[in-house]
């Protein structure tokens, strides 16, 4: 095995990792805000990929240009999710919260299956195509752009949460929603914003991945699993932790696939998850 192959795997893993990081950041933001894990996160990702696909297939809009529309659609989807489901279960037991978002995931996935069948689709001849060749390492152009866009979105999200007034209000609500309400920050509105931004992140990732990934109704499941793992690794609620965790997962996935057996990618990630949460229950970068 040559070093080029390993380098190739590292770069591939890194690029995937950045995408996982952004998906996980959306999940983590929502969790940090209201202690609810969105078990429908993968389905939301699937929706954003389909949004990108249909905008291309029906209106001939290339995924790279439809990104803003996809983001808006997903943000809207987030607000709807909050308005029709989440706000009713904020005070419920954790079990009920898990079941509710789990129910949402079944609902979205099976509706998608009914409407669009479980067929595999892909965007034919997108603007972003081909690959770069640096030495003996190949880098897919759409993959590279996708991961860079995700990284930029991630940085944007981080700056938004830590620097802007709305972001700080979100953080205040995350820490103590009652105290925040006393300060005049309406928690219900913050939650809706959190959902909009959280799913907006998913919109970016899904829209970019539509360039080169097969689009089908079950596509979100594995991504969601990796996002759950990333959120747990990074420490529930920590956004910056998601970046590191996402990259770790991407690397474990691609290097494990290269060095051992690609069909057990999920297991390597799972082992990492178990090791981390057992020895460091607060996650690698947890705040507490």
């Amino acid at each position, binding site marked *: 095995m040559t070093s080029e192959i390993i380098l190739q795997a590292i770069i591939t893993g890194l690029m995937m990792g950045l995408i996982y990081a952004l998906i996980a950041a959306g999940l983590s933001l929502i969790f940090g805000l209201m202690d609810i*894990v969105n078990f429908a996160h993968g389905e939301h990702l699937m929706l954003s990929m389909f949004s990108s696909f249909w905008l291309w297939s029906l209106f001939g809009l290339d995924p790279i240009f439809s990104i803003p529309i996809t983001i808006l659609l997903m943000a809207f989807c987030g607000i709807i999710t909050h308005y029709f489901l989440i706000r*009713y279960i904020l005070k419920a037991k954790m*079990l*009920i919260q898990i079941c509710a978002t789990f129910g949402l995931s079944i609902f979205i996935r099976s509706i998608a299956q009914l409407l669009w069948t479980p067929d595999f689709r892909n965007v034919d001849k997108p603007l972003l195509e081909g690959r770069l060749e640096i030495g003996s390492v190949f880098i897919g152009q759409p993959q590279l752009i996708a991961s860079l866009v995700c990284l930029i979105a991630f940085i944007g999200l981080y700056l938004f949460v830590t620097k802007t007034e709305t972001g700080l209000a979100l953080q205040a609500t995350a820490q103590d929603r009652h105290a925040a309400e006393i300060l005049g920050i309406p928690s219900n509105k913050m939650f809706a914003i959190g959902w909009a931004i959280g799913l907006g992140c998913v919109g970016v990732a899904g829209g970019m991945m539509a360039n080169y990934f097969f689009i089908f109704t079950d596509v979100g*499941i594995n991504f969601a699993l990796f996002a759950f793992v990333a959120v*747990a690794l990074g420490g529930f609620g920590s956004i910056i932790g998601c970046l590191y965790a996402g990259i770790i997962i991407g690397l474990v996935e691609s290097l494990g696939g290269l060095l051992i057996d690609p069909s057990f990618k*999920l297991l390597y990630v*799972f082992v990492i998850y*178990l090791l981390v*949460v057992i020895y460091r229950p607060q996650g690698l970068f947890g705040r507490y």
Partner: protein
Amino acid sequence: MDNRLLIAKSEPLWNTNNRVIFLVGSLITLLFALPLFGLNSFYLHLFIMIFMHAVMAQSWNVIAGFSGQISLGHGAFFGIGAYATSFFYIQFGTSPWISMPIGILVSGIFAILIGIPMLRLSGHYFAIATLLIGISFQVVFQRWDLVGAASGLWVPMTSEDSWLALQFHKSKVPYYYIFLIFFLITFFIVWLLSRSKLGYRLRAVRDDPQAALSLCINVSNYKIIAYVISAMIMAPMGSLFAQYILIIDPDRVFNIEISIIVLLITVLGGIGNVWGPIIGAAILIPISEYSRIYLGGTGGAVDLILYGLILMIICIFRPDGLISFVPKDILERKKQR
């Protein structure tokens, strides 16, 4: 001596309601008598599925409802049970009656192995870990050549009905009675469990693990015990299901839908309540079987849409499940004000 204390002590330990006893008794009699009325094979199948899913949901109820740990990968134990009987039958011709206990044992051992590291996790961490466990089993079995990898195991058919090989080709009636008996036994066991000291302690662990520790309850041990019991209830259903359909593959017996449906049935019926899974299964399974008949191939998606919708509606409006519609005086004692 205090009069009120004497009255309290003279109360029976359990609230026995004659109406409930009568109802349950006549229901059991009816269930035993049903095949005598010449049910067609669709209805037999429907009842078999209800019994099976009620037991599977009851298994989930033990870990989630009694001890409060939300397992999202409970299908794993169903699959272990299914593979145990089919594998031993194909390889060694072992009777399912022997391999079923093996499946139960293996499930129990796996529950311990999984439980020791994982039950230290709480809440979301545990739920996510079990989700991963469930899918890991599916992935491993899809690639494991010894058990047929993705194409699964095909149990060779016996030429005639055989109780030893647990195969019946002429009629579904024997399956009906086998599932019914397992259903009744499981419910009796869980009913006893819910009234035992173990049941009390598990509920203590569920409601407040910290407080449970102050009452000498070793919380992690009790969680593992609940997980093992739950796994051992699940496994025989996998075994019986494998004998019922005779073809098993990873996508069928390790499907995440199994983990979903047990959760759904229990939450719909009433989590933490022995009767919840029965009510849930009696409502949900007909929905899925009928939609499969009337809507053909796409039925699978339609019943899942309904499932998702029902689950969300229940979570919003009736978090205690349908059992909470039953009048309070049947379930609880009259309160003295």
